[in-house]
């Protein structure tokens, strides 16, 4: 006994009402609807699931996952943010810092700078770093395969070529601003093989301002980078944002015509609602609501994906009972902005792989537990 298409749409729609939301929980479980089979089957999942790409750039990807439950989509999102490893500055060894920015603040700023480098080296060659125990040699666990050394040595001097009453510090002095591009990568051991030329470890954004200096002020420090995950510190998170939203649905239940249509269009972001002329055919059909309105404009839904679901249309009495807003429960519009160490699309694939590996390890653990 299969439910009708109408019933399926109803189940798949989260209602967005004037002051409330409705129908928020998933119901696709065995025993929820008598006589229906909702048991998990990978074939059924495969046929219902699909992906649509909207945008795929290195630092910004957007795509839809359709036919998947929120719990799974959310697992991918959470893994993206907190469990995919990246390389970031972890230790800062300050020899000298006479700038106005305090050592600990400077160290913190340095930690947040995203870096990029040879992907093979970062993902495969570099392994986890284990912090030495208290009392152990602090460098006991630092090797070329888990630690990347960087240096930053900048001194500000007066620019002798500048005009005598130059007011712009950038012209009056050399190195008045310290930028991320001033950081120098010092390859050690086998790192030369993986991080040379185009593959060198460099800041993703060379123009990040780290500190401002005045003549005779100097910053002189070394840094160690390690691999880490976002759950430990957000500097390790591979994404600037990783989020999803449900596909908005706009259902015009009764015709909205004439000046009302234009007002209705203005209730939504541009491109969501279109205006079309009522055809003579529609106007001649009795009971359609278009009678006698031939040639006038009517509101039609053009692209509901662009909607922000502001509910503005629900505030106006003239649209009452004419429009229903909702969101599709199983249509997730993902947006992933990478910080640069991974490609955005590659990141999602990595998240899926990560969840699989997690399950695989735990499956073995469950087997061990029973023995």
């Amino acid at each position: 006994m299969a439910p009708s298409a109408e019933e399926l749409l109803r189940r798949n729609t989260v209602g967005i009402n004037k002051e409330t939301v409705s129908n928020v929980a998933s119901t696709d479980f065995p025993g929820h609807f008598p006589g229906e089979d909702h048991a998990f089957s990978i074939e059924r999942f495969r046929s219902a699931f699909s992906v649509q790409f909207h945008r795929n750039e290195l630092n910004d990807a957007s795509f839809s996952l359709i036919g998947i439950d929120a719990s799974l989509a959310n697992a991918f999102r959470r893994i993206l943010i907190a469990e995919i490893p990246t390389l970031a500055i972890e230790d800062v060894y300050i020899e000298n810092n006479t700038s106005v920015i305090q050592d600990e603040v400077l160290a913190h700023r340095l930690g947040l700078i995203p870096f990029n480098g040879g992907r093979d080296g970062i993902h495969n060659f570099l392994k986890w770093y284990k912090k030495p125990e208290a009392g152990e040699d602090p460098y006991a666990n630092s090797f070329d395969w888990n630690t990347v050394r960087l240096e930053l040595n900048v001194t500000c001097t007066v620019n002798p070529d500048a005009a005598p009453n130059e007011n712009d510090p950038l012209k009056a002095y050399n190195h008045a601003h310290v930028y991320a591009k001033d950081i120098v990568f010092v390859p050690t051991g086998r790192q030369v093989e993986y991080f040379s030329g185009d593959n060198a470890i460099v800041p993703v954004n060379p123009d990040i301002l780290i500190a401002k200096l005045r003549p005779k002020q100097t910053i002189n420090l070394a840094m160690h980078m390690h691999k880490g995950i976002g759950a430990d510190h957000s500097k390790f998170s591979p994404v600037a944002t990783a989020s999803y939203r449900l596909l908005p649905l706009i259902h015009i239940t009764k015709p909205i015509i004439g000046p009302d249509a234009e007002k209705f269009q203005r209730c939504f972001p541009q491109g969501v609602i279109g205006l079309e002329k009522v055809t003579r055919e529609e106007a001649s059909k009795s009971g359609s609501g278009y009678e006698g309105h031939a040639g006038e404009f009517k509101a039609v839904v053009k692209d509901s994906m662009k909607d922000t679901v502001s509910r503005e249309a629900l505030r106006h009495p003239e649209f009452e009972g004419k429009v229903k807003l909702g969101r599709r429960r199983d249509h997730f519009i993902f947006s992933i902005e990478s910080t640069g160490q991974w490609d955005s699309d590659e990141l999602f694939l990595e998240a899926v792989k990560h969840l699989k590996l997690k399950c695989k390890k735990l499956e073995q653990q469950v087997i061990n537990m029973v023995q």
Partner: protein
Amino acid sequence: MPGRTKAQADASSQDADMQDVPPSGQDEINQDAEMRENAEAEEEEEEEVEPQRVRILPGSTDTAASFEFTDEGHTLGNALRYVIMKNPDVEFCAYSIPHPSEPKMNIRIQTYDGTAVNALKKGLSDLQDVCDVVAEEFWTKRQQFNSEQGIDR
């Protein structure tokens, strides 16, 4: 991973001309093989170190058991709860994080038929199947989109 990305991109741009051949037929195998390889390598490395992270809580019976997962959270908890609830033999399944400052996640499973441990095992393996399908579909659509848009990566 990036090395592999390159190889796959090349492989399927060749395939793109042949409409009948599934674009990722070859890649899938590579991907799976590589996934398995990676997983094995990681398991081998961590086998000595990896402590037991799952245990049955006291008071559990065969058909009604609670499991405690160490170092897992909402990420796995909710996903696993969903797949286990999709099992028709399962009467009840829920997860909880008893205290936010303890890295522990509990899952309760009660079954009509079969043991709770088996339901948990099936949940974990179903979740892996889901991941395979998602990765495969994602990659196919990515390749398709990239070739349509002329993105060469």
